[in-house]
C-alpha cells in the first residue's frame, strides 16, 4: 500500500504539493510514483527564478526503466531546488515526502490548490488505475 499523506495535495500526474506559511510550497513526487519508477538515477530540476504555469514541464526524473516529466502542479516562481538530488537522486526513493522534495515554488494564486486532488481523491485515482 503506498503512502499517501493527508496534509498534502496531489496532481493527477503524481506530484505532491505542501503549502508553507510564507506562501511558498514544496513539490515532490508521490510514494506511488517513486515506486512505479524504480531506483532513480537522475533528476533534472527547473532553474531558480523560473516562472512556471500549471502543467508546464518542471523537470525530469529518470530511472533505469524510464524517464518521466515532472509537471508544475501550481503556477509560480521557483525559489529553491533540492540540490542534494544532483548527487543523491535515491533520496526521492528513500524519502519522497521529506528529503526527496524536488523544488520550492512561490505560488501565484493559492486558489490553484483547490484544483488539486485531496489525499482521498488521490487514493481513489490510484485504486482505479489498478
Amino acid at each position: 500500500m503506498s503512502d499517501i499523506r493527508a496534509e498534502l495535495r496531489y496532481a493527477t500526474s503524481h506530484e505532491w504539493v505542501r503549502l508553507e506559511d510564507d506562501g511558498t510550497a514544496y513539490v515532490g513526487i508521490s510514494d506511488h510514483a517513486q515506486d512505479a519508477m524504480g531506483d532513480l538515477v537522475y533528476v533534472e530540476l527547473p532553474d531558480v527564478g523560473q516562472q512556471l504555469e500549471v502543467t508546464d514541464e518542471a523537470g525530469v526524473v529518470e530511472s533505469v526503466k524510464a524517464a518521466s516529466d515532472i509537471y508544475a502542479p501550481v503556477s509560480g516562481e521557483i525559489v529553491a531546488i533540492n540540490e542534494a538530488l544532483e548527487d543523491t537522486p535515491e533520496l526521492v526513493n528513500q524519502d519522497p515526502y521529506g528529503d526527496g522534495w524536488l523544488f520550492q515554488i512561490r505560488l501565484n494564486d493559492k486558489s490553484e490548490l483547490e484544483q488539486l486532488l485531496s489525499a482521498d481523491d488521490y487514493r481513489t485515482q490510484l485504486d482505479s488505475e489498478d
Partner: protein
Amino acid sequence: MSTQTDNQLIFELSRPGRRAAAQAPRALPEERLSAIPQALRRKQRPALPEVSELQVVRHYTNLSTRNFAIDKQFYPLGSCTMKYNPRGANRAAMLPGFLGRHPLAPESHSQGYLACLFELQEFLKEVTGMQGVSLTPMAGAQGEFAGVAMIRAYHEARNDDARTEILIPEAAHGTNPATAVMCGYKVREVPVNKEGDVDLEALKAACGPQTAGLMMTNPSTCGVFERQIDGIAKAVHEAGGLLYYDGANLNAILGKVRPGDMGFDVIHMNLHKTFATPHGGGGPGAGPVGVSERLKPFLPTPIVGREEDGRYRWLDQHDLPQSIGHLSAFMGNAGVLLRAYFYARVLGREGMIRVGEYSTLAANYLLKRLEAIGCTPAYPARRASHEFILTFAKESKTLGVSAMDIAKRLLDYNQHAPTTYFPLLVPECFLIEPTETETKEALDEFVAAMESILAEARDNPELLKGAPYSQPVRRLDDVKAARELDLVWSNV
C-alpha cells in the same frame, strides 16, 4: 569453457613491442608530415594496445560468441523489428562497382547506382502512398528531424508563424517528443484510452491555431491499429496542422495500408528495420522521408531525378530552392539504401504484402498462445498488429516477480528478452515483436520457455530474482552503472 584471457580487456593483453604487422601504421614521410601544423600534431603516442594479430582475432571472436544475436537466438524485441535480413541483399550491395564508387565520381560514371536509388525512391512512394521521397536522412532520428523541419518550413513559407505546438499521443514512438523539441516546438501529450486508441475528444480539444502538427505511428506503440485515424487526420487538418507518421511500425502494414491514404503529410521509414539492414547494431541506418504534394518543395537534398533522355542526376538546391537543405556531406548511407533496393526488388509487390501478413500472423499466434498459458495481454479486446503488450502487474503484486525478473530468466532459456517497461503507460510490461521471419517452431519454443518461467514464478520466485545463471555475466546492477557511469579504461 572460458580461460582467464577471455575475461581480460584487449588493453590488459598488451605487451610492449608486440605488434600485428598487417595493422602497423606506415611512417609518414617528412614532407607530408610538415603539411600538418605543429600545434595539431600529437605530443604522445596514442595509448593503443600492443597485441599480435592472432590475439586480436581470438579476443574479438570470443567476445562475439557471447552475444545474444539474431544469428543465434530468437530476438523478439518489440518496437525494433529484429527480423532476419537476407544475406543476398548484403551481397548485392557489396558488389565491387558499388563498393568502390567514389562519392564525388561524376554522374556519368554513377548511372547504375543512381538508377537503383531512383527506383528505390519510386518503390517507397508506391508502398507508402506518398508523392515525393528523399533518401538522404542517415537514420531514423534524422528522418524524424527532417520531417518536422519540413512541417516548420511549410508553415513559415505561408507566414503562418503562430503554430508553436506538436501534438503527440501517449502511444507514439518514444523518440517523437525529442524530435519536436529539437525543431523548436512545444510538446502537448494526448491521452490514449483503455483500448489503446487515441482519446479523440481530448485530441479535438487540444487542436487549435497553435497546432503545427501531430506525430504518431500506426499501428501504435500499444501494438494495435489506430481505428480512428480518419477522425484524427480530419481534426488535425481542420485546425491547420500537418500529420507526421513515424515509420517505426511500418513492417505491420507493408503492402496492406498506406500512410498516404490515411491522410499523413509526411513520414519517415527505417530501412534498417523494415528493409534488409539489421537493426540494433548501432548503425549505420537510413531514414528516408516521404511527403504529400504540398510538402514536396521542402524535401531535403539531394534527390535523384531522371531527365527526359533517361539520364539520372542529383537534384540539388538549384532544383529545389525551398528545400530544408543537406543533412550530410553526400547522400545518406549508400550501403543501407542499396540493401533496401535489392530487398524491395526481391520481395516485389506480392512479397511486401506477405511481410505485413506474416509479421501480423506471427504476433497474433504468439499472443493467443501466451494468453492460453496465463499471460495477461494489456489490450485483451484487441487484435495485435505486428507486436503486442503483456503486463506482469499481477505477478509483480502477488508473487513479487517483476517483468525484469522474467526477462532475465528468459536468457537462461536461450531466448532474448522482449522490450521491457516500454511503452511507459503499461506497468510491468513486455512489448513482443516476433517478426515474419520466425518459424512456428521458434515461436512455440518461446511459449514453452514462458510457461516454464511462469511455473517457476509461482513455485520459486527467488530463482527468478537471481537470473540469469547461464550467461557470461550474472544480473547486472544497472542502477549502480547509471549512477556511477565509468566507461574509460585506464591502467593508471
